[in-house]
Every structure is written in C-alpha cells, then in structure tokens.
C-alpha cells in the first residue's frame, strides 16, 4: 500500500485549533496556565516545530532505543561493573540517580502542561511525545539502579531523594519547581525545554556519558546517551515559541526567562556535575574537565545557538564565564566537608596527581582551593578527624539554596548580597541570584532555606543528629569519604620521608 509522505499530511494533522463557541478562549486556555502573552490563538498557529515527529514514527523509534538500552544492561548485568568500579564512580551514579530520576516525572508533568494548555498546536503535538519521553526517563533511571539497591543502601536514594528534605534535594526541587511545575506552558517551553534541555542536560547526559565510557561503565553511558536522543528532539519545543515571542514584540520577556533558567541551572550543575566530573571520576577516566565540558556544551553550542535565534547573551555573561573557573570547587569543598549530609560518599580527589591535574585545568587552584585542602589533609594525616567535619552551618543563598561561596586565598572574595523584602532579610550568593528573586519576589518570598528552617527551630535537636533526622538520612545512608581516606596514605608517606630526610 502506498503511504503518503509525512510532510504531505503533517501540517493538516496538527491543525487542531478551533474557535470555541461554548466557552471563551480564556476559559479554554486560562492565561495563567497557557501563558499566551496576550497573543491570540492565530499568532500561536504560526509556531512551526523544526524537529518534526509523528506518533507512529515515535513508537517505532522509541522501541528501537529501548531495545538497545535494555539489551546492553542485560548483557552486562553479570559483569560486576558496579562491584568492581572505583568508589568515586559509584558516588557519581548515586548523585546522578538521586538528583535526576524522580525529576523526570516532574518533567513529564511539565510536558503535560504544554500538551494541554499551549495555544500552539505544534507544541501540543511535540509535548505529547515529550511527556512520554520523560516517563521513559523516570522509569529507566529507577529500574537501572534498582539492581544495586541490595548491594548498597545509598542506591535507594535513586527513588527516595525527592521525598526528603536533604539540602541538595531542597536546592534541586527549588530550581525544578521554579522552571517546570509553577510556570505557564510557554514559559515551561522556554525555561525547561529550551534553556535547560538544549543546554544543560547535554552536560549530564553526554558529557558524563563520555566519562562513563572511559570508566568502562557502558550500561550507564548507553542509558544516559539514549535518554539524550529523546531530549534532543523535545528540547526543540522552546525554540519556535521564542521566535513567536520575538516576532510579536516580547523579546525582553523571553530573554528574561532564558536568563533566569540558565543561571539557576548553572548553579545546580555547579554542585551536582562539577564535583563528580573534576573530583569523583577517577583521574585516568576523566575525558575533560567540568569547565571544558561547559565550554563545549554551554558556551560553544548552547549560547551560540541562542544568539542565532535572535536573543542576546545573558546580561551576566562575563561573571558566568569567570565562575566556570571557581564555583564548583567551592561546592565540592562544601559537600565534602558536610559529607554526612549527602546520600553518596564524596571522593576527596586531592592526591598529588589529582592536584597537578586541577592546577593544569584551573591555574591557581593550589593557591586557592588547595590551601583549604592542605588543612584537611593535615588533619586526616594527624588522625584529627573531628577537625575535618564542620561545627557550624554554612550561609545558604535564598535563591539557589546552596552555600554562599567565595574563592579562598589572597583574593578571598566572599560576599553576601542581601535584600530586605517585606520586612524579611534575604541573603543571596551573587548579584544574579538576587536579581532572579527581584524579578518576581512573591514567587520566592515564602520559601525557607535549610538554614532558615534551622534558625526557626524546625530542626530538632539542633545538632547533626537532628539535621540528619530532618533530612531523612537513615543510619547507613550517611555520606563519608568514598575511599575511606586511603588517598591520604601518600601524604602520610611523604611526611614520613620528609621526617627521615
């Protein structure tokens, strides 16, 4: 039977807008959910998705993808990759699954919002497929780690993390809720699919896949790069929405949404992806540094495409480029220091060879972050373990929910960016975080950071035990040094040699 080519019927098939007569357009598409920017349905009918897909094609292609990913898993299941992998690499997997898997279900909900409420028929079609993509990602990223739960209790956090008040999860939820779950359909398309998915998911799902392939974890590499083939399609939902907004005089609104989402994504990735790429992944398996991956995926690829579509580089562009050298080193130091409060075991990543690598990739590392690590190393070598843990809380930013950081050393530059709003004093880690808040204060004003909750007496008793209880971290799940401090042996030996000499 002769079949029509797709493009012979595609335009007709997606022409699904009609003029409602029993209800008003605003009742059919409530502005708060649809985000029409005051544009009538007709303006949104010009939306033309550049990466087209139809349901029959989708089913066929997805079946093939799943067959590939699941057969690689089945083939390698008995190869003991997990058991034999470096403890640092196990931590990469734990951090990834916990922070991502259930977020995929939230993303399915965000896609469903575009599917129902977008005034653009083409967007509704692509979001229908995108919603099923995200369900696939949630299911796979719960199923794949599940085989390891019996071997390692922290793997249970692949499912559990999103239900807890663990601090990194509060930060992740604050961001994802902001861009995915509490915005209108058009804003979701710009903030989630365009800003986050054409940009940052490439870091976590392809950059990290490159490290995974080097580490021999082909199940994980294959899984996440397969997921990214879905992303590369449905991430294109936002682009044509941007074009519609720009053509109709709403460039500033579009730009603002991109700038907010990109900055917020960057902060989350500085704590999630930066440490795992530059410290946890065993040195010999690091394909590139975190900064090099950021330059490849975000600077060269995403931002270049963004300006090609008629937007500008974010107003904080120079600060962003400067922070690529710094922020994640502080995030790593902080999460290592507060390691009992995470669901994975942070790898210190500071043997002499690793420090040489860090110095090469980030000139000045030893003079700055290295100085802090010198103190930790001294204490570990001396057996003063109590001194390697914190006694106080960090100051946490009321936007990114992550510690307020500066770069240590001679240029110590930590700074609080405060804001008084309706009688409450808020603290931010950067000018940009504060700017995000100021764009829509009521959206964020009621939220309490983990430190705010501590100071409000919501965490009892006010000590580590109380904090762990509040964060739902059960005994046996607490993070500790990934290598049980074996990395310090070399420093112990160096000291002994020095003494003998």
């Amino acid at each position, binding site marked *: 039977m002769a079949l029509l*080519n*797709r*493009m012979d019927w595609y335009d007709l098939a997606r022409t699904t807008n009609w003029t409602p007569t029993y209800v008003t357009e605003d009742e059919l598409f409530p502005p708060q959910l649809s985000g029409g920017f005051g544009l009538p349905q007709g303006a949104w009918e010009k939306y033309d998705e*550049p*990466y*087209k*897909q139809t349901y029959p*094609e989708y089913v066929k*292609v997805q079946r*093939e*993808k799943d067959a*590939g990913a699941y057969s690689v898993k089945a083939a390698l299941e008995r190869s003991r990759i997990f058991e034999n992998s470096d403890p640092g690499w196990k931590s990469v997997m734990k951090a990834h699954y916990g922070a991502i898997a259930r977020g995929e279900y939230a993303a399915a909900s965000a896609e469903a919002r575009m599917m129902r409420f977008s005034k653009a028929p083409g967007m509704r079609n692509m979001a229908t497929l995108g919603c099923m993509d995200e369900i696939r990602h949630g299911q796979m990223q719960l199923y794949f780690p599940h085989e390891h739960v019996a071997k390692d209790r922290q793997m249970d956090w692949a499912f559990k993390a999103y239900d807890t008040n663990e601090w990194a999860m509060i930060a992740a939820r604050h961001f994802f809720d902001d861009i995915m779950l509490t915005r209108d359909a058009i804003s979701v398309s710009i903030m989630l699919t365009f800003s986050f998915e054409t940009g940052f998911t*490439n870091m976590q*799902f*392809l950059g990290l*896949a*490159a490290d*995974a*392939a*080097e580490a021999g974890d082909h199940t994980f*590499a*294959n899984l996440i*790069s*397969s997921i*990214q*083939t879905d*992303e*590369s*399609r449905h991430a*294109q939902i936002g*682009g044509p929405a941007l074009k519609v907004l720009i053509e109709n005089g709403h460039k500033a609104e579009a730009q603002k949404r991109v700038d907010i989402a990109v900055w917020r994504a960057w902060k989350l990735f500085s704590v999630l992806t930066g440490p795992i790429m530059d410290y946890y992944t065993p040195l010999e398996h690091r*394909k590139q540094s975190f*900064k090099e991956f*950021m*330059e*490849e995926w975000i*600077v*060269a*690829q995403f*931002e*270049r*495409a963004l*300006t*090609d*579509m008629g937007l500008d*580089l974010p107003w904080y562009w*120079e600060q962003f*480029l*400067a922070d*690529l*050298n710094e922020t994640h080193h502080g995030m790593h130091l902080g999460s290592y220091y507060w390691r009992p409060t995470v669901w994975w075991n942070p790898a210190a990543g500071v043997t002499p060879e690793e420090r040489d690598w860090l110095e090469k990739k980030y*000139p*000045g590392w030893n003079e700055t972050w290295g100085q802090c690590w010198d103190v930790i190393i001294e204490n570990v070598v001396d057996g003063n373990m109590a001194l390697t843990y914190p006694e106080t809380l960090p100051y946490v930013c009321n936007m990114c929910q992550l510690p307020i950081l500066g770069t240590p050393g001679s240029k110590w530059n930590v700074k609080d960016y405060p804001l008084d709003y309706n009688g409450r004093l808020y603290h931010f880690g950067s000018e940009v975080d504060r700017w995000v808040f100021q764009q829509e204060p009521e959206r964020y004003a009621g939220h309490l950071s983990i430190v705010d909750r501590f100071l409000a007496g919501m965490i009892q008793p006010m000590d580590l035990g109380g904090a762990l209880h509040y964060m739902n971290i059960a005994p046996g799940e607490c993070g500790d040094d990934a290598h049980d401090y074996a990395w310090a042996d070399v420093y112990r030996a160096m000291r002994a040699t020095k003494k003998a000499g």
Partner: protein
Amino acid sequence: MILGSSAQAYHNNMVGPIMRAGDLATAVIEAAKLDNPGRELFVEDKRAYIRIHMEQEMVLRRQTIEEELGRPFKMNDLEVDLSSFAGQIESRDNEIRFYFVKRI
C-alpha cells in the same frame, strides 16, 4: 584569570549532529562528505558521542545514508542515535539540515 579561552569558545560557526557511536554514525559521517561536497568536515570522537560538524550549514540526505547503511532508512530513524546537535535544525522527509542564520 583565564576568561579568554571560555569566551573564545562562543566564537564558532560549527553545526551538525552529535551521534552515539555505531553504524549509523559511520554512515552519517560518509553522508556528510557526499552530501556537502567541497566542504571541510570535522569529526571529533569522544567515545560516548561523536561530533560531526561543518561550518555554517550541513545537509544530510536520506538516500545517501540509506546507501551507506545498505538497508532501508527513514529520515527520522536518525533520532535513534542523534544525541544532540549544534546549530538549528530543519527536518524534512528526505533530508535534514543543520544551520546557523548568522555567521560570527
């Protein structure tokens, strides 16, 4: 510090697919040469993914990929291994195009 190198990364006009390794990626590399004659092709193999790029514009034709694969191929089958791409995309029944509107 080393602001320069990061800022420079932005100044590029590279477009094209980023593929998972496999026979499809190999066919796409060959198709990129055949369908864009006289143009310089940049292939960067990162093991988990392969960047297949050209300056400003790259066209891939369904028929060329089909011939390189030696089996029937529909244009949207590319998605099975298309993990990402640089530039903007335009998808049609018999070809796919990656491009930038502006040149830097």
